[in-house]
């Protein structure tokens, strides 16, 4: 192993360098110029995102603890794009609210550390690296959820997140210890050879799956989601629902399709049942929400149920559809959260009835919101339709027609509550409509990128072919 093989960890090394540069910036920038930290962080992260697109090398490091391939590399770029959009959307909030309390730099450092944890988690080659990545990705987010220390609701969401995350990781570890007992190794490459379908292995696998289910907020483990999203700052809620969920889905998919493939006859049924109840409960609870953040929380639970449809076939087709859907979901959900954040920042209003008559006062914001909701619901011209359509194709390719039918029923239910918001914005009139306001340049840029993504990604078919080609690299 020579020095150049460290370049396999290019994403991680550059991001770590960004974090360290921010530490230097925190020390050297005087306290009345702290708002320049926001520009610096966005600039550095932009460089990091662009650097991710250069031609990568593939291979493994540290005796197989860390490995990377074409699909993992691509997915890290997806996460980067998501975080970059999120930074653009939350820049104004950080500048106005957080910099005043002299805590701007820590925000970026914690956010980037969490992203670093996700890189290690999806590149993991053994359970130790996986566990460390999981914890590194979760702990900073819990600190960020409690970041508005003067708000009681923020602390409440922080404590709820940290306690459920700790319980989830404890359950995961107990499951991993059983997998270790039956296979004799914590390395994925050894486990896949030694794994058998005895009862202890299955128990270990179920506990492990439950722990990851917490992160993706599948239904029996979803109870923290709505409360945490409502209490946390909006940028953190959107980070949890997009980036964190995307990374967890990705690693779950890789583990199920490669390491735990011999247990497929077990997890097929589990994923089937969880998909159905997650879709139904997420959608039915979303119907009665009045707060936009809780509404988006339950909508994101329902979306997690749809993603599970892509896990069922267990082959390259499933991988491609899941990654494609996550990519589209990043853009659609960030657009919706971005609009909620813009409105909350300028007016402090977060209820659905506050959105009545929004189209007359803020037409651009309403159009972005409408695109986002159409994409989440899966209405044909926008990208979300293609994402859902491919997921359904993946499930139908193995003959799960009943599951696809139930998913279509759920799309109909979800259409109802997404259109409730659209109706409030476009058809209702209100005396107390949110007055016209101008967003700053970063917010405009963030919303513009998501809107373009929603419009273009679905129609640009080489993208799906490209992802499909990459998907063979994990097998």
């Amino acid at each position, binding site marked *: 192993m020579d020095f150049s093989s460290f370049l396999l960890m290019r994403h991680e090394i550059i991001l770590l360098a960004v974090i360290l540069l921010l530490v230097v910036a925190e020390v050297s920038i005087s306290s009345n110029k702290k708002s320049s930290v926001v520009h610096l962080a966005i600039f550095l992260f932009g460089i990091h995102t662009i650097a991710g697109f250069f031609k990568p090398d593939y291979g493994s490091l540290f005796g197989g603890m860390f490995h990377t391939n074409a699909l993992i590399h691509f997915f890290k770029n997806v996460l980067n794009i998501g975080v970059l959009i999120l930074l653009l959307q939350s820049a104004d909030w950080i500048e106005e609210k957080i910099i005043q309390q002299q805590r701007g730099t820590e925000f970026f450092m914690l956010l980037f550390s969490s992203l670093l944890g996700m890189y290690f988690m999806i590149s993991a080659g053994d359970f130790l690296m996986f566990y460390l990545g999981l914890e590194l990705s979760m702990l900073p987010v819990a600190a960020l959820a409690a970041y508005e220390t003067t708000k009681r609701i923020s602390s*409440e969401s922080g404590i709820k997140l940290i306690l459920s995350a700790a319980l989830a990781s404890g359950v995961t570890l107990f499951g991993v210890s059983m997998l270790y007992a039956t296979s004799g190794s914590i390395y994925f490459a050894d486990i896949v050879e030694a794994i058998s379908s005895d009862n202890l292995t299955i128990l270990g696998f179920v506990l492990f799956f439950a722990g990851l289910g917490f992160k993706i907020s599948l239904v029996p483990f979803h109870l923290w989601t*709505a409360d945490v999203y409502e209490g946390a700052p909006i940028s953190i809620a959107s980070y949890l629902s997009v980036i964190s969920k995307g990374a967890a889905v990705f690693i779950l998919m890789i583990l199920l399709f490669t390491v735990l493939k011999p247990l497929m006859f077990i997890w097929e049924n589990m994923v089937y049942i969880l998909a159905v109840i997650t879709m139904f409960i997420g959608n039915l609870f979303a119907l009665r*929400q009045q707060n936009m953040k809780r509404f988006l929380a339950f909508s994101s639970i329902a979306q997690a149920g749809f993603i599970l449809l892509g896990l069922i076939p267990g082959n390259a087709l499933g991988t491609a559809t899941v990654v494609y859907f996550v990519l589209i979901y990043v853009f659609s959900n960030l657009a919706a959260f971005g609009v909620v954040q813009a409105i909350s920042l300028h007016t402090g209003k977060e209820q659905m009835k506050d959105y009545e008559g929004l189209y007359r006062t803020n037409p651009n914001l309403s159009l972005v919101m409408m695109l986002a909701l159409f994409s989440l619901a899966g209405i044909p011209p926008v990208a979300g339709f293609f994402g859902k359509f491919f997921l359904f194709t993946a499930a139908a390719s193995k003959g799960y027609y009943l599951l696809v039918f139930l998913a279509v029923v759920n799309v109909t239910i979800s259409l109802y509550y997404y259109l409730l918001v659209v109706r409030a914005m476009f058809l209702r009139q209100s005396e107390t409509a949110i007055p016209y306001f101008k967003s700053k340049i970063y917010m405009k840029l963030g919303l513009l990128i998501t809107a373009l993504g929603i419009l273009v990604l679905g129609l640009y078919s080489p993208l799906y072919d490209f992802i499909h080609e990459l998907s063979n690299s994990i097998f």
Partner: protein
Amino acid sequence: MIEGITIYEILTVTTILFFIGVYGFLTRKNLISMLISVELILNASVVNFVVINKYLYPDMLQGVFFSIFIIAVAAAETALAVSIIINLYRQISSVEVKDTEVMKH
């Protein structure tokens, strides 16, 4: 290896420990006790890793290393949770779950 004690006995103890933790987490009404319950769960898996390593695969040290990392991460987790609880206590002067909750669906 401990003379006269089989792996089954120790694994039974850790499993009981694990479920005490889960039960405590679900029933306790105090944030600190909930945190202690989570620690029980984590310690159950730590003991599991060490015992499985020692009894079944004594020629490698993977389980022992894993347990050291779990202990370190659990300490970080507890520190963060306690700091959030302290921040909450400053605002509401209580660590009871029923006083904490303002968000209900």
